[in-house]
């Protein structure tokens, strides 16, 4: 307690330098919070969007389906196991059939993936309800595509485009589809080079009647009974890629946080070295008054560490309004930021979790404790008589 009291008195007594250090450290602290809050917010948004647009609460895959190997798509389709069909009938799952196809927009050739979805499905956010067929024209194929694909293929609502695919027998067939809507999504993996058409239409086009490649589950579906080799993939499994990318980004944030912190800590370190050098006489006096060296080291260490406590308080004072404002307005992201292939919104709403804040606080306090302590070890080796004379050590 004595040490703490002394530390505060000394800090407040030493004025400008203290506040300079505290300010720098508080800026580092707030930026760390901001940066991690942004990443956490992004991560949560990306996961939520990916769940809502692509993976649902889990999926059941055809035994041969491998999303990383498009060559498997041609063979990974079969009748849906009965346990799953009942889920689909209840509306708790949506079947998707995949077919690789080539599209020829404006004379160009683009490899695409046609996904058959049930227009009535409510599991994914894909606007499948817009896929209304024309009963008088069996040749009419309504399709929805994402805005990124629309842009890269120069397609817009109302455009017709020729697509060519192989049916179940491997025979090529070609038809025109009509873009009935272009949707905006934060999830590039349901957008780029993907065409959504009514499930029954695709089954008919490919002669894969009643078949599907994968089933997307709603959160009401629970863990389905696995049948006929179809395998259940839970959300964690399906989010793995995303989580890996986020982990890499988080790693980058550690580096930046570390650099920021290092600058602030360097200032504290420097102040500590200087203050031990300048306050030798004070150190000698403490020892003459009967303080153990350990206690003197404690005083100086606590004094240095107190910078971080003040910095956190100061950081809270200006950081909380600042961070709250950013949370309210969101952080605008450059429109091409999603080229990285990871779901990203136009605006990220940062998320400041208690755990993240606590970790940052502990990080700041502990690291300042370390840099405060290191110079003070010099005190232990100091001769009190030299210290009292203010002799340069």
């Amino acid at each position: 307690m004595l040490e703490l009291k002394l530390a505060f008195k000394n800090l407040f007594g030493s004025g400008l330098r203290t506040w300079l250090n505290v300010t720098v450290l508080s800026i580092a602290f707030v930026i760390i919070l901001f940066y991690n809050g942004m990443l956490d917010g992004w991560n949560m948004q990306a996961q939520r969007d990916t769940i809502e647009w692509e993976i649902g609460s889990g999926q059941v895959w055809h035994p041969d389906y491998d999303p990383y190997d498009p060559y498997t798509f041609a063979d990974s389709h079969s009748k849906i196991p009965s346990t799953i069909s009942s889920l689909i009938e209840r509306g708790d799952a949506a079947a998707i059939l995949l077919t690789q196809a080539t599209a020829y927009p404006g004379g160009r050739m683009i490899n695409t993936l046609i996904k058959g979805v049930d227009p009535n499905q409510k599991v994914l956010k894909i606007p499948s309800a817009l896929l209304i067929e024309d009963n008088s024209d069996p040749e009419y194929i309504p399709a929805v595509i994402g805005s990124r694909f629309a842009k890269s293929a120069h397609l817009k609502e109302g455009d017709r485009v020729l697509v060519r695919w192989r049916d179940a027998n491997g025979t090529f067939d070609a038809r025109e589809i009509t873009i009935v809507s272009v949707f905006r999504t934060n999830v590039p993996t349901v957008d780029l080079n993907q065409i959504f058409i009514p499930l029954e239409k695709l089954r008919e086009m490919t002669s894969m009647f009643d078949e599907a490649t994968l089933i997307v589950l709603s959160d009401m579906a629970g863990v389905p009974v696995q049948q006929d080799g179809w395998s259940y993939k839970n959300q964690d499994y399906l989010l793995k890629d995303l989580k890996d990318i986020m982990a890499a980004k988080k790693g980058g944030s550690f580096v930046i946080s570390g650099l920021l912190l290092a600058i602030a800590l360097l200032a504290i370190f420097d102040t500590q070295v200087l203050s031990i050098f300048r306050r030798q006489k004070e150190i000698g006096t403490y020892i003459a008054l009967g303080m153990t060296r350990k206690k003197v080291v404690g005083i100086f260490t606590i004094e240095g560490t107190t910078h971080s406590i003040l910095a956190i308080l100061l950081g809270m004072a200006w950081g909380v309004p600042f961070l709250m404002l950013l949370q309210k307005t969101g952080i605008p992201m450059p429109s091409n930021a999603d080229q990285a292939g990871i779901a990203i919104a136009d605006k990220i709403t940062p998320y400041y979790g208690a755990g993240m804040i606590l970790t940052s606080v502990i990080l700041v306090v502990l690291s300042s404790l370390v840099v405060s302590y290191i110079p003070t070890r010099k005190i232990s080796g100091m001769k009190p008589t030299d210290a009292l004379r203010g002799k340069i050590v």
Partner: protein
Amino acid sequence: MDNPIIVTLEKVTKRFPAGKTEFTALNKIELTFRKGEFSGLVGPSGSGKTTLLNIIGSLDCPSEGVATVLGKNISSLSHKESAELRNYGIGFIFQTYNLLPVYSVYDNVEFALLLQKISAPKRRKAVMDALEWVGLADRAKSRPSTLSGGECQRVAIARAMVKRPALVLADEPSANLDSQNSHMIVQTMKRLNRELNTTFIFSTHDEKVMQYLDRIIYLKDGMVERDERKSED
């Protein structure tokens, strides 16, 4: 002369490294100090006064010989034990006062007691008593920077005395003071010496201080040249 001996120096020698050789700052000092003595080390600058006081104060160890202070052999004490000896047994008064600038007068005096486990009410009483002794009770809340040199030295005396140590070491306490203040602080210490029977050892080359001393030990080149006691009038 029945008072017990509290400081014994036997062949105390102190050498400091000086380049490739050594410099002998104290040379086989033989001295004893009894409880209640008001004595002083006198000698020119560089004669070893501070070095000797530092050894008696357990801030330094003799290179050779034995220094026994309040029953403890200085050379055999651990850091912690010597801190304890200073904390409970020895008060220091420095030429440059060495007050803690960020502390009030009260806090400076209380500091010595905070290291001991003394209850807050007892501490308050002891601090106020000590400030009364030196006539600064009304400046308790002041910062050292607002005090005169004489006042600072009186705060330092209060700080040294508040824990009622057996021994007070005062290293040239009047060197930075004018004549009036010099008299005043030595008189204050003399009074405390009588009232509390505290042993004082000064180092000084100030005539004004010397006239109050009961015993003057003349040091020269690290050796005791003379050891004079004032005859009791």
